[in-house]
């Protein structure tokens, strides 16, 4: 699972009002290079919840992203490269996603988060 996916997932346990962002518990992560597209990054930037991305990247040991970002930074190649790396090249392989409200742990195995709810959580 990459951090763009993380930026979309929300905990949906019955009664939970604030299930985003899920906290990362990292046992193993990998980095895989993908082609760089400045246009894609510029388009997706306004849709990204920045703080969630920064915190998730930091939990995988990548601390290069600034705490805050605005669209003027999209002119900087240096910024775009860091954004690209955090969003698309870091993969959580083993670990878990933790609901910020209930602490419920959604395990991640072989890169696949298990977001299935138990019967009493639906």
């Amino acid at each position, binding site marked *: 699972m*990459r951090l*763009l996916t993380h*930026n*979309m*997932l929300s905990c949906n346990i019955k009664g939970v009002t604030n299930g985003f962002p899920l906290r990362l518990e990292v046992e193993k992560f990998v980095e895989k290079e993908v082609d760089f597209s400045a246009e894609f990054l510029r388009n*997706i930037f306004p*849709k990204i919840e920045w703080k969630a991305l920064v915190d998730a990247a930091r939990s995988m040991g990548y601390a290069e992203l600034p705490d805050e970002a605005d669209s003027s930074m999209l002119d900087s190649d240096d910024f775009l490269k860091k954004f690209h790396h955090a969003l698309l090249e870091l993969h959580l392989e083993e670990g878990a996603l933790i609901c910020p409200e209930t602490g419920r742990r959604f395990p991640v195995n*072989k890169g*696949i988060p298990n977001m299935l*709810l138990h019967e009493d959580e639906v």
Partner: protein
Amino acid sequence: MKLKQLEGLLGDLQQFSNPKVELEQYPTRPHIASRMLYMAENSFGDISGKVVADFGCGCGTLGIAGALLGAEYVVGVDIDSQSLELASLNAEDLELDIDLVLWDIRNSKWRGQIVDTVVMNPPFGTRKKGADIDFLSTALKVASQAVYSLHKTTTRDHVKKTALRDLNARSAEVLCELRFDVPQLYKFHKKKEVDIAVDLWRFVP
């Protein structure tokens, strides 16, 4: 990439070896999958450079087709972990990076509209009534640009009405009618193979 080439690559993907009837797991044949994604890309520009989600992805056919046609990011979601393992192997064989999530579409919760395009071959709702519309409902909330989906032709009026009236789709259009060949997968199938007519839809959220 040419249509024939895409269909050929999809033909090499591994399919379910033990399909689960309660999930209405029928593989999306390469013939249909390739045409669906090819049209989405070449007629509407909804695939290349986009974020594409494959709902009920099974062994990943539609999502992989999207990645082959240049989607920037693909995420496949399915309720069945064995299917996702196959999807993961299939993507790996073609050296594609696809994110996979084990999730029940019907009670999944997505933040924002990061996904541009949803592609799906939902359960037709034959075994579990309304499953197709549940998928469509979620897809129309998640996608910002378009939803491509297959539904039985016999449900055409119902799908159209529901999409426009209840799910607030801006448009709902049948792009073409296809023959979906369902091989004899399950014991309750009496005939060796049946063809059912399905519509390829494009919805605008």
